């Protein structure tokens, strides 16, 4: 009894640490402590569950639990510590998938112990299906982000296939719940030892598991790499939901709080991300960008582009008063965040004011650019969000766009036929000079031409971001 009460208290405290931790993570100053507080609550909950358990447990079970936790800790810790900052998003995706798989496995194992209980069956089937989708979807997202699978694969009429598949998963899930519930009963029977699953009934939950895994793959595969952050965020809230169903199954409040908290917060975060891209979530999932869509047609491009050399740009920047850098995914790929910081310091030393303009969806995840730039010691105050920097472009001498494209495309404001029309952009065309560093003239993720490049104030500076910027830094050093 005592143990049980103590465990409930630990769960209560744990739930509170999750809420407080998440709240603190919303502020740059308290964020790190918030994370640690939530982690402390989690550790307490885990060990409380193990040590305050009432009833006989075989030593071999303890050995397995501690073995799994020990191994998981070492592997998780090492992976998380070693990975490069640019690889963060795929790692988050990977860990999310592990959580989903964990939820699915719980469902698979509890199925046979809960025959005839409707509430438990809803929780088990929902947890298994959502967890499995989250698992396979996250793995695909991981593969896409790390470049193993870099093109969206679209089966012919994939939207129809996916919709049918989804309906199939839902109907099948509904049937399994019904058949294993108190009323349905075709999957279980009353035996001397209580309710028991019918012979071979386990097969159905395994089939459901497999179908959900396949659906998770089909769901994620057609979505382009640029939209992966939204997908990861969505799958993140899915896993939260799966955990919450687990909490419902065991009537465990900390799983419920943690799960629902992440479920709702994750959903909101997903919507915020979509809003930043000015696209409804349905658009991300059912796709409109790139590939076979009409996106590429667009308006006809007139004018020509100007090519510029490192020397010219070095001189231009050296004699400017204010330079704004627009970092994009290309910067992250080229690992140019350290060079860009060097450039910034060099210019600051010469009395040039340097700022970074951060578009909400720059990089692979919202805030990804900030994390990357923070890694190379760029001061937090130098990173300016879109709404704050846009009015400043009028007084800016040079804008340096590094590896960004769609977020500076004026078509978002001027061309109603453009697929990105309406997306808030960084209004760099208001600055006096624009330099765009790109590897080639290829279009951005949205697969559309960028009118900015044909602007008379715009010069192109071709080359890999890291190489090109290093060259630029050297040129500026030579100027002295």
């Amino acid at each position, binding site marked *: 009894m005592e143990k049980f009460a103590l465990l409930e208290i630990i769960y209560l405290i744990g739930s509170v640490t999750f809420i407080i931790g998440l709240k603190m993570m*919303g502020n740059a100053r308290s964020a790190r402590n918030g*994370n640690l507080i*939530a982690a402390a609550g989690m550790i307490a909950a885990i060990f409380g569950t193990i040590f305050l358990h009432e009833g006989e447990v075989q030593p071999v079970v303890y050995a397995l639990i501690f073995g799994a936790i020990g191994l998981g800790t070492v592997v998780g810790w090492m992976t998380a510590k070693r990975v490069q900052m640019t690889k963060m998003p795929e790692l*988050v995706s990977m860990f999310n998938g592990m959580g989903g798989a964990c939820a699915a496995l719980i469902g698979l194992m509890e199925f046979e112990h809960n025959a005839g209980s409707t509430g438990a069956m809803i929780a088990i089937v929902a947890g298994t299906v959502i967890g499995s989708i989250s698992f396979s979807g996250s793995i695909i997202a991981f593969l896409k982000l790390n470049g193993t699978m870099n093109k969206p694969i679209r089966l012919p009429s994939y939207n129809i296939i996916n919709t049918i598949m989804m309906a199939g998963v839902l109907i099948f899930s509904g049937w399994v719940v019904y058949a294993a519930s108190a009323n349905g009963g075709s999957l279980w029977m009353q035996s001397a030892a209580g309710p028991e699953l019918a012979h071979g009934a386990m097969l159905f939950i395994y089939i459901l598991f497999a179908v959900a895994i396949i659906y998770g793959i089909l769901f994620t595969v057609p979505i382009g790499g640029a939209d992966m952050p939204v997908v990861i965020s969505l799958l993140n809230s899915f896993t939260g939901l799966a955990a919450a169903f687990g909490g419902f199954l065991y009537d465990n409040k900390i799983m419920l709080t943690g799960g629902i908290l992440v479920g709702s917060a994750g959903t909101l975060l997903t919507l915020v991300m979509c809003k930043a891209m000015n696209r409804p979530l349905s658009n991300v999932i059912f796709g409109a960008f790139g590939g076979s869509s009409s996106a590429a047609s667009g308006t006809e491009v007139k004018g020509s582009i100007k090519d510029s050399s490192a020397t010219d740009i070095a001189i231009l920047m050296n004699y400017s008063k204010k330079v704004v850098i627009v970092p994009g995914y290309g910067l992250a790929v080229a690992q140019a965040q350290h060079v860009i910081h060097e450039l910034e310091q060099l210019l600051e030393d010469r009395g040039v004011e340097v700022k970074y303009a951060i578009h909400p969806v720059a990089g692979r995840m919202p805030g990804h650019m900030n994390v990357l730039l923070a890694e190379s010691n760029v001061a937090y105050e130098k990173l300016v969000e879109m709404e704050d920097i846009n009015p400043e472009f009028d007084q800016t001498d040079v804008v340096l766009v590094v590896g960004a494209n769609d977020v500076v495309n004026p078509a978002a404001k001027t061309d109603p036929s453009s697929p990105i029309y309406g997306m808030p952009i960084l209004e760099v065309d208001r600055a006096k000079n624009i330099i765009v560093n790109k590897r080639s003239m290829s279009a951005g993720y949205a697969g559309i031409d960028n009118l900015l490049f044909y602007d008379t104030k715009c010069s192109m500076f071709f080359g890999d971001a890291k190489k090109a910027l290093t060259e630029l830094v050297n040129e500026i050093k030579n100027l002295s």
Partner: protein
Amino acid sequence: MEEIWKFVIENKEILYFVILAVFVGVEVIGGVPTVLHTPLMSGANAIHGVVIVGAIFVMLHVDTSNVLALILGTLAVFLGTLNVVGGFVVTDRMLEMFKKKK
């Protein structure tokens, strides 16, 4: 139909709990600067690792003669641990950077 009414009555506290927790989740995230979205997503990712508690439950009640259950249960605990430990450590690494220089 009967079944549904019974379900609602039996689980009314949990239903309240769920709705209120949804509001807490929305409230907690509201107004977070874009800058912190990635760490926040990562932090939330670590928190849903609480599913490991469920995996531990399964293991504590497992029938030790069922080898398949033992394997699946151990795997679940392992995966849950990866989610928790990896999640918190990655988040910490991200946030550590925001602390430098004030």
